[in-house]
């Protein structure tokens, strides 16, 4: 492994067949660091904007988002089960279905808010709600693409694809819980 050369002037030859798995996972972790920074920046904007505005009116959370959250949690858990027992395809299908359900639920939540007359322009809290959920939603769509790819990619890439996609998907789940707390837990 090349990292071991940090200590030894001349380490053993790179023999680990899963060394490209390590590369994939490292790339994914770095990508998640960048995504984390994106949402950190949104958070700081949220906090500053909230503190400055005397007319800040928090929008109540659309009820359906409880179901959405549940769907995303189930999706994450079932993906983890699949990652550990890869013979049972059903778990992957469940994970994918729950992911799609989450997106559908989010679209519904948006429409619900719009029908109540809550738009980007007339309420700063709603503006952040739309921005944060849209940014998260786009990342979820990317995640669904990755989950779909697990069974499609060539056999030799499948393992590391699954590992990297799982990492990403769990991160998106955790990010979602954080966003819920930010948007509705602090009011």
């Amino acid at each position, binding site marked *: 492994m090349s990292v071991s050369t940090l200590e030894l002037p*001349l380490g053993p030859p*790179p023999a680990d067949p899963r060394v490209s798995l390590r590369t994939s996972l490292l790339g994914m972790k770095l*990508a998640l660091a960048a995504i984390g920074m994106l949402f950190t920046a949104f958070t700081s904007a949220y906090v500053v904007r909230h503190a400055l505005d005397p007319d800040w009116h928090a929008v109540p959370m659309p009820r359906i988002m409880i179901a959405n959250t549940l769907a995303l949690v189930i999706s994450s858990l079932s993906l983890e089960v699949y990652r550990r027992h890869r013979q049972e395809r059903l778990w992957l299908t469940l994970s994918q279905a729950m992911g799609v359900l989450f997106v559908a639920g989010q679209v519904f939540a948006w429409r619900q808010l719009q029908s109540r007359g809550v738009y980007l322009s007339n309420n700063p809290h709603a503006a952040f709600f739309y921005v944060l959920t849209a940014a998260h939603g786009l990342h979820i769509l990317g995640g669904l693409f990755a989950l779909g790819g697990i069974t499609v990619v060539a056999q030799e890439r499948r393992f590391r694809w699954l590992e990297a996609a799982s990492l990403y998907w769990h991160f998106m789940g955790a990010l979602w819980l954080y966003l819920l707390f930010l948007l509705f837990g602090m009011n």
Partner: protein
Amino acid sequence: MDVHVAAHQHEAPTGFVRKYIFSMDHKVIGIQYLMLAMVAVTVGMILSVLMRLRLAWPLEKWPMLAHIFPEGFAGGPMTPEFYLAMLTMHGTIMVFFVLTTAPLSGFGNYFLPIQVGARDMAFPFMNMMSFWVTFVAFVVMLMALFATGGAPIAGWTAYTPLSAVGAIGGPGMGAGQTLWVISIAIFCAGSLLTALNFLTTVLNLRARGMSLMRMPLTSWAWFTTAILALLAFPVLLAGGVLLLLDRVGGSSFFIPAGLVISDKHLTNSGGSPLLWQHLFWFFGHPEVYIAILPGMGVTSHILSTFSRKPVFAYKAMVGAIFAIGFISYVVWGHHMFMSGMSPYTAMAFSITTMAVGVPSAIKTFNWLATLWKGQIRFTCAMLFSLGFVSLFVSGGVTGMLLAQPAVDIFLHDTYFVVAHFHIIMGVAAIFGIFAGMYYWYPKMFGRLMHEGWGKVHFWFSLVGVYCIFMPMHFLGLAGHPRRYAQLTEFKYLLHLQPLHLFISIAAFITITAQVIFFFNFFWSLKKGKPAGDNPWESTSLEWSIPSPPPFDNFGPIEPIVHHGPYEYSVPGAAKDYIMQTDPPEARP
């Protein structure tokens, strides 16, 4: 299985498109980035010529230019709005498409994998995407230049609320500014892909024996720069998304209540213009180091090579790069001393800013110590690296002055600041690029650039940039504000007009001298002296392979590294340099 084979199963492409256009080869991508930067720098220079014309001859009408830009001249001298548009686009194009693309994505893409002994970047497809995404960003930026209503006028920092209110904010603030924001957002995405690749490649794809502390300082600089890019660009992206929504979605993230523009009362409320400044500068300050750190790496590398001496205090150099990178995240407030910031906060930012001086001084003194008693070879690359050191000191010293909030209150938004950042960030980084170009050109194209013309280019450039930017310090100290097209109505500035004339003439001569470089670049492609593998008798891995390198860099040989990056003039050794891949017994 071998690490490189595992990560790179693609074969050498044969078709023209796959080989030169949509190539996944890091070397081709590096050259693509350099070409993009060359086009961008030409556009940026033309814009600066237009500005300098206006400043040197404030009332001249330039019928020929009026013919080309009928709206920009509107029957008289260049309009102030057109001047601001030129200023905005000059800054944006130079900072993003030249100072970020050439030193980091250009040379970094080409030489980082080779220097650490990898056959390609960790994610070649993503690498290809990063270039083409950046290319699209550049095209969109050029569209902003020609947008209906003109190019944006809000400066490269796009301060809100001006940049957020839309067309009502003035000419160019409609479609032009919207395209500007979109371009920057796309650029962020491209830069993130590059950063991701650089970090993964360094951490996971190094050759056998290439421990971190055997990496050349160039690779260390690219690595640190990639960390900065990875963590800074998402913040700009977030700011850009919010700004775009303020512009097209009717939100009020940055637009305060009660704003009246052009006699129209805006309905927005509660937004904070300062929020944009915080988001922008949290990115913006690391961005300054994204531009300059690769230049520092190149300079360390070249000073050592052409002094025939090891870099003085290699470990301290690595530490200093990291320290500068780290501190760059906690200094952004020094751009905002005049924004109504609490004096206590200003003091904190002032202290962190001055702290940058410590690692910077470490680097400078180590450069001087590297030169000390060396057998210096004054090649073009060496001259430009020495020029880099000179400019880095000249521009850095004024940074320490501007870091004092009390001094900054007077100097803020004057030409003193323009002088400071052009020398330290603009010209020093450009000198780093030139040094790298003269140094690596033989490796990239197999032929040497013409040294004689290179030296003419160097002296015109060095004397030229000092003639341009030194007088600007005096303009600033005399209280001359920046960004104005014309201040001839102000008596206290009238006596400074000859200085403007001098600066403009110096600028025209210096810019004309760059033709020598472009000529040398293209002439040497065909007519330059054949370079051989290692014309500079250098030690790092790229000089152990043919020029230009083959598709997978190392051919059938797996590089094994036995030596540190700067083993020059080792006592008792057969030659005055030991290459990193030389067998262990090369060092007696």
